[in-house]
């Protein structure tokens, strides 16, 4: 797997050479094809496993997958629902790509999403008098900051106390989810109705919709922007270069005078902020209020989304839409073909397993090493 790609290996990374790389020369297409092949093979393997399961359980795989495809892309509304589900996944996946490239295993995006959703809801309920021009950014900012703090906390525990971020972020997930459950059943419960949910956020706090008459909101474009920004940060800036160095070899980074601790904290805060933003767009764009289990596990799917894209934020846009399509398609499949939608978890899991088996993630390391 230690193959060297000539264009990158021979030249030092510079902006001009990078621009040249994005021409569709045969060599570039070949490289692209080789990069794409393992994830595509992983997806094919997963769909095959899914088909076997469907067949064994007495469903027709062709029919079920047909309904699923139809459900994901068959109409304007279905496509919008797919992109809606892709939005938090792209946001979370982009942030996690930064964290994973920096060598920190943030498993806590789910909790960071909840932290963001809580703060965004608070801002949306509290600041009712403000115009949308100010309130919408404020709500998003509140969510992002809250997520960044929740993620940064795990970074701090790692840097200051040597606590494994894998364990602390998992713990912080549960704490955020339980705290949300407390807030929506106690202090933040709505005045009327008394369901375990908060009041609705102000009208001016809601995200504008972009594809009438569907529910698709501007958060999707925001997610694309965040993916692009993460890409530029990681691969086109010196700070990103430093972060990736920390990820590949903390010792080498330290030797080069890079502050490793600060780098880890920053990537935890960035990935937490992106997940917090996902929580904010869910509240401000879709649910307009907070309740328990506001996320169906986007934070965990986001891990798979980032990994499958080889921790490249541009790739995350595609894997995010893929996982969004799997989710929305499977819901329609459950409705119209009576196939349990949980099948999608198996497919997602097997995608990851096959990608791991095919060495997708080892290529990441090998490539990073030579850059």
């Amino acid at each position, binding site marked *: 797997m230690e193959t060297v790609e000539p264009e990158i290996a021979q030249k030092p990374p510079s902006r001009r050479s990078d621009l040249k790389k994005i021409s569709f020369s045969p060599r570039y297409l070949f490289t692209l094809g080789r990069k794409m092949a393992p994830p595509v093979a992983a997806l094919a393997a997963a769909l095959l496993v899914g088909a076997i399961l469907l067949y064994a359980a007495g469903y027709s795989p062709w029919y079920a997958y047909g309904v699923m495809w139809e459900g994901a892309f068959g109409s304007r509304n279905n496509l919008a629902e797919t992109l809606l589900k892709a939005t938090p996944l792209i946001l979370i996946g982009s942030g996690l790509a930064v964290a994973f490239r920096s060598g920190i295993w943030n498993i806590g995006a789910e909790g960071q999403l909840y932290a963001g959703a809580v703060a965004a809801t608070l801002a949306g309920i509290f600041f009712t008098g403000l115009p949308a021009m100010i309130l919408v950014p404020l709500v998003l900012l509140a969510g992002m900051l809250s997520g960044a703090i929740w993620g940064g906390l795990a970074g701090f*525990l790692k840097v200051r106390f040597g606590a494994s971020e*894998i*364990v602390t972020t998992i713990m912080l997930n549960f704490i955020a989810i339980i705290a949300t459950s407390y807030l929506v059943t106690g202090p933040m419960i709505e005045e009327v109705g008394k369901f375990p949910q908060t009041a609705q956020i102000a009208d001016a706090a809601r995200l504008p919709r972009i594809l009438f008459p569907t529910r698709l909101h501007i958060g999707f474009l925001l997610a694309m922007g965040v993916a692009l920004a993460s890409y530029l940060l990681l691969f086109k800036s010196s700070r990103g270069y430093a972060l990736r160095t920390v990820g590949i070899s903390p010792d080498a980074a330290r030797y080069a005078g890079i502050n490793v601790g600060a780098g880890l904290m920053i990537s935890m805060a960035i990935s937490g902020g992106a997940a917090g933003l996902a929580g904010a767009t869910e509240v401000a764009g879709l649910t307009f209020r907070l309740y328990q289990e506001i996320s169906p596990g986007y934070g965990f799917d986001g891990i798979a989304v980032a990994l499958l894209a080889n921790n490249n934020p541009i790739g995350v846009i595609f894997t995010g839409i893929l996982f969004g399509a799997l989710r929305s398609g499977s819901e329609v499949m459950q409705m119209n073909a009576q196939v349990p939608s949980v099948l999608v978890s198996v497919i997602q899991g097997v995608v*990851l397993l096959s990608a791991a088996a095919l060495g997708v*993630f080892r290529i990441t390391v090998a490539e990073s090493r030579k850059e």
Partner: protein
Amino acid sequence: MEPLAIVSFLAAVLAATWRLATPFIFTSLGEVFSERAGVLNIGLEGVMLIGAFTAFAITFFTGSPVLGLAAAITSGLACGLLFAFLTVSLSANQIVVGAALNLVGLGLTSFLYRSIFSGRMETAREYVSFSPLEIPFLSSIRFFGDILFKQNLMVYATPIVVLLGSFILYRTAFGLSVRSTGEHPRTVDSAGLRVSMIRYASVLIGCGLAAVGGAYLTVAHTNQFNEGITSGRGFIALAVVVIGRWSPWGAFAVSLLFGFFYALQLRLQAVSGITIPYQFFQAMPYLLTLVVFVAMRRRAAPPGALGVPYKS
């Protein structure tokens, strides 16, 4: 509350403590082996679910919880084989494979449960599970009788299994090689032992015991299955290993502590006039884990080679 009411409340909580700690004990003991050999398995939740479902399905169709338990262990070993093949033989990333195992575990068990059992009225039919075994004389002791001597077989088995685990880990050649593999695999390699074989064995122990922990939920603690029945216990087991500082008895003690929080939270939800929200006790194990990290500073050091694939 009346003093007598407090005593009976305490007895009820403590009796539930050991019962609720049992899945943590099995699962975390297994993970101690796995991590001591340098393999971090965050897919415990998925393995527990697979164990829980297998035990449920086999017991449901055969009527024997012993067969169900045996089938669960087999399913756990199969998960372990897959995990070890990917992470040890192919050097795939342990976090990736663990996360994938969680997804597969939840999806597969829920899918099969809905496909096989949904719409079957007989699911409501209770099947035989390991029932409480009252120990003669001892169980009639006031207070302690309820807590210690009216449990089921799997609960009674926990200290024995932990004793066995501790003996293997600290008093046998195999245990020594497990511990060395986690700290410094190259040393083990140069001593002529196969790092990969030791890691395979440890992962199999880990996943096998996680499946037992899951099976306990469906064939001993209750006699039913529902989707996501493990509800995060696999993740708590990861925390147990850390707070128990990677030792079998440490894991046992911390499991009991977490079992206590569980029991307290469940009992308090039923008691009126308690002002502390039950979520506080729910969050306790997780909060405590963070506090322990801070309190132990850097002394809570994991095995040196934890999470690092070994290539000879």
